[in-house]
């Protein structure tokens, strides 16, 4: 089932991951592949754009946790913007916002990376 479109914008030390669709168990392959591609390009900050995401379920959040495990080992910072108020609440409930800080827009998320 194709539920999520992932577009990677690679820049020097920074990558924006534009997501469109649903973040569920079906998104795992694409999300891990985008992360691996960014890390292979020596990216140090990965910003997820959730502006076009309609739905994130618990399996989708577990993929983000898997990415957190990898990113902490590899010294890559994770950031996010564009989550709906509901999913900001859910991410906060789970504790994810502590490790993947959420910003109002792309400019603020980029600025938080230091580039």
């Amino acid at each position, binding site marked *: 089932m194709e539920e999520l479109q992932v577009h990677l914008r690679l820049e020097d030390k920074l990558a924006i991951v534009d997501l469109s669709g649903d973040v569920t168990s079906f998104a795992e392959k694409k999300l891990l592949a985008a992360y691996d591609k960014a890390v292979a390009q020596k990216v140090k900050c990965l910003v997820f754009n959730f502006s076009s995401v309609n739905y994130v379920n*618990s399996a989708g959040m577990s993929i983000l946790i898997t990415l957190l*495990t990898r990113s902490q080992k590899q010294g890559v910072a994770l950031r996010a913007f564009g989550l709906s108020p509901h999913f900001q609440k859910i991410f906060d409930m789970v504790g994810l916002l502590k490790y993947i800080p959420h910003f109002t827009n792309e400019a603020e998320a980029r600025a938080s990376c230091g580039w």
Partner: protein
Amino acid sequence: MPRKRRVKPPGVISRSENQGEVRLSLPSCIGYEKIAMEAAAAMARMMGFSISRVEDLRTAVSETCINAMEHGNKLNAANRVEVLIRPGPQSLMVQVFDNGTGFESSMHSAPHLEKKIRGEEDPRGWGLFLIKHLVDHLEFKTMPKLGHVATLTMTL
């Protein structure tokens, strides 16, 4: 003079009605939970729940159905997950039935994010945690030979 018939505003369910019950039968395939999720959300909107409560219900119903498919019916597509959406005068009840015997006790313990990040716990296992925190009342019941039912209630 002919009596004027009282007309309900479109999309509003009278609180005195109890015939608005909706039943769904889903195969135990991940993805189909969205059908129940959207049906429950539509009912909640018609009853006048706020947008944030509707969103809470969407996530709770979705996670309950996923649990029923995965843990109750072991993702056997032939085993159906039955969903009953029942609007009441002051509340909305959603029941999710599966063929299982209920949750393992490990599923009831609170997930620990840091342990999951460190790889000491499976990164999955958030469903029950979310359901508990998003609905007003949650109840599980195992019926011998009949299966398991999760009952979610949201109060207006």
